[in-house]
């Protein structure tokens, strides 16, 4: 018989999800494991007969039920890296045996949308399903440097084992149930690992909401019983600290997706009267290491994750992460300096990858996309000289006479997460190429400086 592991390790009457409003008529606000399993069985039976599901649910309860129902039905979740319509169309075309699933009035020009909230919610069975460990349960997409998203295969073994490791390293040692709020979407690996998978194994009851503004986050946290846990990113945490609002005591704050600085980490701990744990990871591997950034500069790797390196033809060192639960070793985009057996320092990133508001993209992929836009004769997308975690890339391009800057932006928006849309877009008569055709970064920066100069004079 094939090896299996349960969908959840929680007890039937444990609280799994704290809902802002009952998700269906007659449902309680705090969903217990038994209610959850009942809904999962009902939805699994109602899903369309296809191989892949593109889960676009915005509410975390609906995402979680649908994500699990897809697995129980023996299907596979496709987790796109953004919500752009072009990405959905690409997925539907690349995986013809797939359907869109949503919990709200989402319209798609690309295909019909299966509405999870309109399907049956009740089943007689409250049994906790066992999932084959080798079942492909998700494909998590990351921006590949070729311009096409690249799929990262996740088996139930990967999720089951990595979640056990994550819970050991991310939660405290009190053994108490925490009430969690996440400001990140469940489709993103960081949100998936912490706000969807972790409650299925560890003592977490997660809120179904995804608040954005500081005031909303304060109110949602206050609505949760103590002890509390906040799952967030540096962009959101910076906004929370800057808002000057007071927040309910939050015992633990988990932060990932982009580097956090020590000063902000200390501020967050002061404002929330809790411990901030920063996590290092990537979509290909998942979470790999942690540090208490207010007090530690070195990262401590999780048990079960190993790093190794080899020297490339050009003399640079390439790092890989491997683990028993991963199908293969994964090349990392970061350079690492080991300190002893368990600790390391991050020393840089591969230059093609950019990170904006915690989302990772490839500059060469952005450039390929730009060159595919009809009407663009020549052009480049690049990062300005000084940039923070939310600085947008800049585009410089030469256009056909009948093409406009807005048309180029609209074409890019069909395929990109909004944070990667260039700002500003500068139209030039000719790209500042050298005689040999090369486009040097310095010349692009000069063109940007000239544009800024003109804007201030104007």
């Amino acid at each position, binding site marked *: 018989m094939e090896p299996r592991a349960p969908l959840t390790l929680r007890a039937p009457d444990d609280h799994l999800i704290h809902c802002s409003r009952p998700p269906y008529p007659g449902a309680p606000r705090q969903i217990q494991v038994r209610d959850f399993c009942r809904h999962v069985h009902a939805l699994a039976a109602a899903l369309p007969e296809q191989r892949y599901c593109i889960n676009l649910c915005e509410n975390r309860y609906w995402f979680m039920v649908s994500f699990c129902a897809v697995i129980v039905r023996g299907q596979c979740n496709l987790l796109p890296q953004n919500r752009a319509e072009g990405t959905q169309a690409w997925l539907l075309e690349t995986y013809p045996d797939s359907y869109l699933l949503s919990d709200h009035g989402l319209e798609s020009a690309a295909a019909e949308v299966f509405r999870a909230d309109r399907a049956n919610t009740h089943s007689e069975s409250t049994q906790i399903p066992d999932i084959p460990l080798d079942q492909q349960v998700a494909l998590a997409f990351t921006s590949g440097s070729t311009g096409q998203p690249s799929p990262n295969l996740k088996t139930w073994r990967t999720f089951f084992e990595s979640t056990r490791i994550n819970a050991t390293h991310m939660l405290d040692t009190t053994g108490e149930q925490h009430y969690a709020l996440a400001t990140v979407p469940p489709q993103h690996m960081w949100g998936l690992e912490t706000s969807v998978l972790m409650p299925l194994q560890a003592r977490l009851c997660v809120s179904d909401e995804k608040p954005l*503004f500081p*005031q909303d986050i304060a*109110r949602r946290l206050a609505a949760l019983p103590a002890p509390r846990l906040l799952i967030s990113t540096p962009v959101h945490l910076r*906004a929370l600290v800057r808002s000057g609002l007071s927040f309910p005591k939050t015992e633990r704050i988990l932060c990932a997706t982009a580097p956090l600085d020590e000063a902000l980490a200390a501020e967050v701990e002061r404002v929330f009267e809790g411990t901030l744990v920063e996590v290092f990871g990537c979509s290909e591997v998942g979470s790999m290491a942690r540090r208490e950034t207010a007090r530690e500069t070195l990262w401590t790797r999780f048990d079960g994750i190993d790093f190794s390196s080899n020297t490339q033809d050009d003399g640079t060192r390439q790092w890989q992460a491997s683990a028993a639960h991963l199908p293969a070793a994964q090349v990392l985009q970061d350079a690492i300096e080991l300190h002893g057996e368990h600790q390391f320092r991050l020393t840089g990133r591969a230059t093609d990858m950019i990170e904006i508001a915690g989302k990772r993209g490839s500059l060469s992929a952005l450039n390929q996309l730009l060159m595919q836009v009809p009407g663009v004769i020549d052009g480049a997308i690049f990062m300005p000289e000084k940039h923070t975690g939310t600085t947008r890339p800049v585009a410089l391009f030469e256009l056909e006479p009948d093409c406009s*800057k807005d048309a180029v932006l609209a074409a890019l928006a069909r395929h990109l997460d*909004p*944070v990667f849309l260039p*700002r*500003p877009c500068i139209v030039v008569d000719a790209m500042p190429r050298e005689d040999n055709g090369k486009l040097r970064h310095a010349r692009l920066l000069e063109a940007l400086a000239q544009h800024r100069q003109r804007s201030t004079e104007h």
Partner: protein
Amino acid sequence: MADQSPAQREMAELLVDALNLEDISAAEIDPQAALFGDDLGLDSIDALEIALAISQKYQVQMQAEDENTRNAFATLASLTEFVEANRA
């Protein structure tokens, strides 16, 4: 140039400053154009920046779960009106 009231112009300047909108000047923002989506193409990171700038300048807190806030983010005109109505 768009036809703006003095309060709208002040809000437009706050937007351009908070978001480093280099492609457009404050005077060019049409009070009725959609801030998010097609016209100006702002996103949720921008919404967060705008909410912070507004709370710092006018002591008005934006809340997404409040329908008035969601409507307020529609255009420059509605955002200005919302802040005027809610400032201390």
